[in-house]
């Protein structure tokens, strides 16, 4: 009877040792999560969409492994730990990529803004030079109002840049440039109209 008791205690001890030695890798999980959050905070949703998706997929796969092991009697979290460590390392690498991409987007937006401003100023200068005769006055006044509208849109480009919406700013700037060029062409046509009459 005594032996049986001893054996039972020993058996329980062995089971306890096997199960308690393999604890869930909570620290690694937290670290991987934090690394992914850092990518998101750095603008990963905008500048590293694909990479962020992969990170989340890999993290989910690692968590699947953690969950699968947690249901086993003899838990082995070695593989899950490796997976989580890789997620963390990958996330850190992705985070490093973002500033350069953000800078590139910013530069693109700024250069599009400059081009839009230049096109706007060109149209404005042309309009100022245009002969304000009876035949062109109406056209010129209409184009002046159009340019005032473009000026309001140019202000929105700056607002988008200030809010770090570089892609939005670029799209708007390119559209303004197109419209400003179209107005410049109209001014030229109005000038030609007057020249033709002389």
């Amino acid at each position, binding site marked *: 009877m005594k032996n049986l008791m001893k054996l039972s205690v020993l058996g329980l001890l062995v089971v306890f040792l096997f199960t308690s030695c393999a604890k869930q890798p909570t620290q690694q999980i937290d670290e991987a999560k934090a690394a992914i959050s850092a990518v998101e905070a750095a603008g990963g949703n905008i500048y590293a969409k*694909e990479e962020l*998706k992969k990170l989340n997929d890999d993290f*989910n*796969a690692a968590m*699947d492994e953690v969950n*699968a092991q947690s249901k086993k009697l003899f838990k082995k979290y070695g593989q899950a730990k490796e997976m989580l460590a890789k997620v963390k390392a990958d996330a850190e690498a992705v985070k490093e990529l973002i500033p350069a991409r953000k800078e590139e987007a910013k530069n693109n937006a700024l250069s599009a803004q400059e081009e839009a401003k230049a096109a706007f100023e060109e149209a404005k200068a042309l309009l100022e030079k245009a002969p304000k*005769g*009876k*035949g062109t*006055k*109406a056209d010129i*006044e*209409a184009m002046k*109002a*159009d*340019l*005032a*509208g*473009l000026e*309001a*849109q140019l202000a929105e480009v700056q607002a988008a840049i200030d809010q770090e919406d570089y892609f*939005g700013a670029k*799209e*708007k700037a*390119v*559209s*303004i440039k*197109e*419209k400003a060029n179209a107005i410049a062409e109209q001014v030229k046509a109005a000038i030609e109209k007057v020249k033709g009459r002389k």
Partner: protein
Amino acid sequence: MKLKAVGSALALLSLYSLIFIGQSCQTPPAPPEVQEALSQEQDLWRAGASFFAPKEYEAYRQHLAEARKFFQQEELKIGYFRNYVKVRQKFRQVIDEGNSLKNLVETRKTQAAGEIRSLKNRLYERYQIFNSFSLELTMRNFSRQHLAQADVMFKEIDRLLAQEKYDLAREKLKAVENLLNQAENILRRQVERYMDPDQVAAWKRLAEKAVKKSEETGSLLILVSKLERRLTIYKNGKPVKTYEIGLGFNGLADKLHAGDDATPEGEYKVIKKVATSKYGKALLINYPNEEDLKKFNEARKKGIITERTKIGGLIEIHGGGKDGLTQGCVALDNSDMEELFRKIPVGTPVVIVGTTNLNNKIVSVFQDDKKAEKK
């Protein structure tokens, strides 16, 4: 000898056993469906499945996760005991589901793009109506500022549609709609008299009275219809010649005071023929008449205009070109003015009205706009 033969047989048997064990220990390659499904999931995500078919995409991912789990369990087995038949079946099912999902995403994307394009086209139709109308009015107003901004946004929307950024395109469309509504309000305020049936009827009565008088007296009459940009000479109550005219920035408004660039409305007469003016030949009319003075004094009493404001004068029908802008006068092309100058003597009645047409183009502009809105 016998021993040698037995030895050889044993050696051969051992060799075969080793080959057998070796072969059975070899890990069979993962079925190609596994990689295919994983790539498919990436493609679906890139195509926007999580946005266009979130429920279906989630279910698909769940099934993919189950298939992967099944595959991982199979991989835990010793090579010889692995059976990828079921793995392949499971992944094939996932791939089939993914293909259906891909079609669903494409369909929903096409639908979304179609809805946005149709909304955009509807708004663009409104934009075009207002754009050409605002040019026709040749008024100094803010409507064109709104319209120019709307035009910039239409260009942005086209780009967003090309990039399949439908949410952003929808947001921009709302902003465009707001700009068009503002432009419409400005335009309406400037021309609402032309949509008022009572006002149009009053103008019509004024014109008909003058034409009848011309018929009764056999005299000449100049009838100016501002909205239609038309000047017609009547003789014996019959139209004999019509000319196209130009007005000022605020030509469609009724003149109230000096500097408002509006063209007066009412009954006038030619009081002087000016052979050489800044704008070629000219016919001076008797603005302000009694009615104008009355209106002006009332406006002053009500504080609509200041004490310093003057009523103005020197309103002419002159040359210089119909596509110019006047400060309240009626302008004709020089050749037309030469002809008019020859035909019209001093004392000829001049009636200036907004329009005599109840279904005039302003009414139709805003009706068309309503139609575009309802589509």
